[in-house]
């Protein structure tokens, strides 16, 4: 149900001036009674940092996904843009309300395949699925979406100087298909998440505790290996044509990308960047391990940002059509999430369970935000320099609807995003517009994103 229409923010002009950014942010903090410094001091600090040649803190982008839709009645906040009460599902985020923008009334676009498939594929790409090999419960078999996901557009601009262009983390995501992939490097190029915190730790943080001389030798050796491997792929590519050549070329690109990681300087431990604890054991597919794996992934994600290993990251909880059973809640929910999500609207018992499931995911976002907030950066925190998008492949599970899809933004994107707001939109507002605004909030001045027919420009009043 749509409410009132777009309300422009007090200012939607250029946000490039740092003093405007910082004074605006500090003013907002003041409005929520959590001011940490006067505006002029903050901007002075920023100028000093620049004068001393110290790089400003980078802006980061994080996507968090949870599956199977929500219940709009329990998701929508009540109130106005600046004065609102969080809903039962969003209530765990109350401590971060001043750092949130809740966006309601935006319609998630998608096409091809079944409702879960195209919801998952279109969610971050704003593109339909191409024809392909995955036969879903609907229409013709579908493949991957026809363009990159928004985080990868961000990574294209902001991810070039870090060891990892982007970091994809998952929690029991499972099989490789278009129900389980949301991040796309380009059309038809899914980026699988790493489901195992132990491997993330080994792959991403090994540099932190390695002997520098040993590390340098290892990097040199791997560069030699990958040089030779890349030459082999290039030679094969030259012999092939058509789709085969495109596939081998993609492999070659991937080899070159990991080779680049070996020449990217890695600053090492600082006050903010601490070697995280290694996972006690490899991740399992045991249902009841879901929360523990997720907690480890959140810690690793936060530290990857704090250590500037990556500036773009995603955390994917399960997959569309998630079969997770929330047995750890009190009282336990033994039924499969996806089955519950298909109960009719008048099934109050199921609705209560779905609210508790979605509230658990909100709690995970709150945890992520708290951990980002706990890391000081300059006059603010890591959260201030981050933009988080929490999204879902569906709006409502039982009808596979994507109208009025649930979006929550967290963090201030380095000051470009005014937070503590609840924005509602009426009419047919495509979510591609939200993606454009996210890019704008990340300092990327794109005016369109995804399938052009599904985009009319930035979302009015967001950035």
């Amino acid at each position, binding site marked *: 149900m749509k409410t009132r229409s777009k309300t422009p923010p007090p200012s939607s002009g250029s946000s490039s001036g740092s003093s405007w950014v910082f004074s605006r942010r500090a003013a907002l903090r003041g409005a929520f009674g959590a001011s940490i410094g006067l505006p002029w001091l903050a901007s002075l600090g920023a100028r000093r940092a620049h004068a001393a040649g110290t790089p400003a803190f980078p802006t980061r982008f994080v996507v968090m996904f949870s599956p199977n839709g929500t219940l709009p009645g329990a998701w929508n906040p009540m109130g106005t843009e600046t004065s609102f009460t969080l809903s039962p599902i969003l209530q765990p985020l109350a401590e971060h309300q001043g750092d949130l923008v809740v966006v309601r009334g935006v319609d998630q676009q998608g096409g091809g395949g079944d409702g879960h498939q195209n919801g998952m594929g279109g969610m971050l790409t704003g593109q339909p699925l191409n024809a392909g090999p995955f036969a879903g419960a609907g229409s013709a078999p579908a493949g991957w979406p026809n363009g990159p996901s928004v985080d990868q557009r961000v990574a294209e601009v902001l991810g070039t100087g870090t060891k990892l*262009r982007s970091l994809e983390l998952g929690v029991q995501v499972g099989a490789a298909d278009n129900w389980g992939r949301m991040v796309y490097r380009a059309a038809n190029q899914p980026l699988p998440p790493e489901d195992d915190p132990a491997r993330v730790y080994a792959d991403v943080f090994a540099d932190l505790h390695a002997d520098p001389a040993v590390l340098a030798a290892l990097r040199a050796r791997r560069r030699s290996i990958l040089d030779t*491997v890349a030459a082999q792929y290039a030679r094969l590519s030259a*012999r092939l044509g058509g789709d085969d050549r495109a596939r081998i070329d993609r492999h070659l690109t991937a080899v070159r990308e990991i080779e680049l990681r070996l020449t990217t300087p890695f600053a090492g431990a600082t006050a903010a960047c601490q070697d995280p604890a290694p996972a006690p054991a490899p991740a399992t597919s045991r249902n009841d391990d879901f929360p523990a794996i997720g907690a480890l992934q959140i810690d690793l994600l936060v530290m990857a940002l704090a250590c500037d290993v990556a500036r773009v990251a995603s955390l994917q909880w399960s997959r569309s059509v998630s079969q997770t059973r929330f047995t750890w809640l009190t009282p336990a929910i033994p039924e499969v999430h996806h089955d519950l999500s298909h109960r009719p609207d008048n099934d109050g018992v199921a609705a209560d369970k779905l609210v508790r499931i979605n509230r658990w995911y909100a709690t995970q976002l709150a945890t992520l935000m708290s951990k980002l907030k706990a890391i000081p950066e300059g006059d603010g925190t890591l959260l201030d320099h981050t933009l988080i998008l929490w999204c879902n492949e569906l709006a409502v599970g039982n009808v596979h609807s994507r109208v009025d899809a649930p979006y929550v933004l967290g963090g201030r994107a380095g000051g470009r995003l005014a937070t503590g707001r609840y924005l509602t939109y009426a009419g047919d507002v495509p979510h591609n517009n939200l993606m454009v605004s996210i890019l704008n909030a990340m300092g990327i001045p794109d005016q369109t994103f995804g399938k052009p027919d599904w985009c009319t420009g930035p979302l009015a009043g967001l950035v």
Partner: protein
Amino acid sequence: MKVNGPLVALLAASLVGSACKASHPPAPTTAGLCTAAAPGPAPLRRLTRFEIGRSLADVMGVDPTLADELPPDEESDGYDNASSAYSVSALHAAKLLDLGESAAAAFLSDGARARDVAGCDPTADGDGCLRSFVQALGARLWRRALDDGEVADLLALATAAGSGDGRAGAGAVIATLVQAPDFIYRPEAPPAPDRVARLPAQALATRLAYLVTASAPDADLMAAADVGGLASDAGVMAETERLLRTPRAAEAFHHFVTEWWELESLPAVQKDSNLFRTWSPGLPGAFAEETRRFLADVWQQGPTLERLLTSGTTFVDLDLADYYGYALPAASGFQPVAVDPARAAGLLGQGAFLVTHAKADQTSPVLRGKFVRARLLCDPPGPPPANIVITPPSIDPRKSSRERFQEHTANAFCASCHQMMDPIGFAFEHFDATGRWRDNDAGVPVDATGMLTGTDVDGPVDGVVQLAARLLGSAQVRRCVATQWFRWAFGRNEQTDDDLCTVGQLAHALDTGDGDLRSLVRASVQSPTFLLAPAGGSP
């Protein structure tokens, strides 16, 4: 199950005629038996991680589970080896680098193993030895001889990466051989630019090895290819028969059946332990072992459809025998036992199938019926329409499963599709969601009567034994098994008229070969799809 009334009327009119009746049952097996002339498309294939692990184990003697660190393979049509589905990412490249290094370290940790390859120690015996080593190991991993330039590049790498350390140099070479496209992919040099032509022997050896053994060509097969042993169809058949007798072929058969029967999710299956007090976390592993031993035995006895669908023997240990309620085996460990005649339906009566095709809290006649429809009859039901509320029935302990799913037949809209699935699935109702036999459901005797419709073996059945017997007599089932095998064998689904013709020939081979699945292997290695390459090679 609740659906909106007017919507039902609206959609039912359009869907009853389309969603479910639009599917095309396969043509009868023997009608219009043709001779395929062209091979159809041959897209570049990539090894699955199952095949990568086995290849490394067979060529280098390392642990095949090293490859489990790779990202999972995409599944299309239920199979992990579809050429059109696989993707590549930086994560794949990073994991392959890790795999190359870990395989190299494992291999070099045993000095005797490294010396066996070229008769000298590649980490210590100088350039001449390293050259021989690169040529010998490279030829096995890449399934062809390396040219001089490739060898020179690898020797240069050993020098650069080794910095005087022979072990580091050899390790870098091995890590590179493993990540190379000639190991991970199966490139086939086009035999003729302008016409369909028989593949060269080395490419045939690779196709044959992965088709029959899901692993790299062994030394005998490489040698046969080198001396012209695959130049004739008889030569190909002789190697096929030899490979079919190796343990690797039995394991490859197990992998195919696991994919075909949708058993991949078994290790992660969990049930509601509040409803099922006898459920334990170790059961999926026990079911997997039961089925593994059953399939190994079936392979050894002759892997016929009859054994797969009607065998009255299975393999259990004491715990699993107790769980199923079978007579306890005399010895410890997994032993062959005769199952109750009422559940003598091969795989259809085993826990592995029954628990993966059920919900956590109840049986699913829909999932079980859909499996039979889609995977054994190749007539998958149409999709549920978008934008209706679809919900499995709530657990009402006063209602049997059959009563709960009654809405599917009471409601004409639902029935249009569910009549194709549920009545087949009801035949499994003696097996609960955890694979145990039950005589009663919700206090009433189980009614396991079901119905096959829209098939070549229509009619009522009572219980899984009757269902299995009916399926065994179906030409449609044999045609479907041939279709499933084609998709698995060639890493793609059937696309051209020649492909359909080849499927018909495979089905005919199954018919005339007493339903022995090895006849599918033999027929496929004689088909143009296997022996020939399209003009110009891969498209």
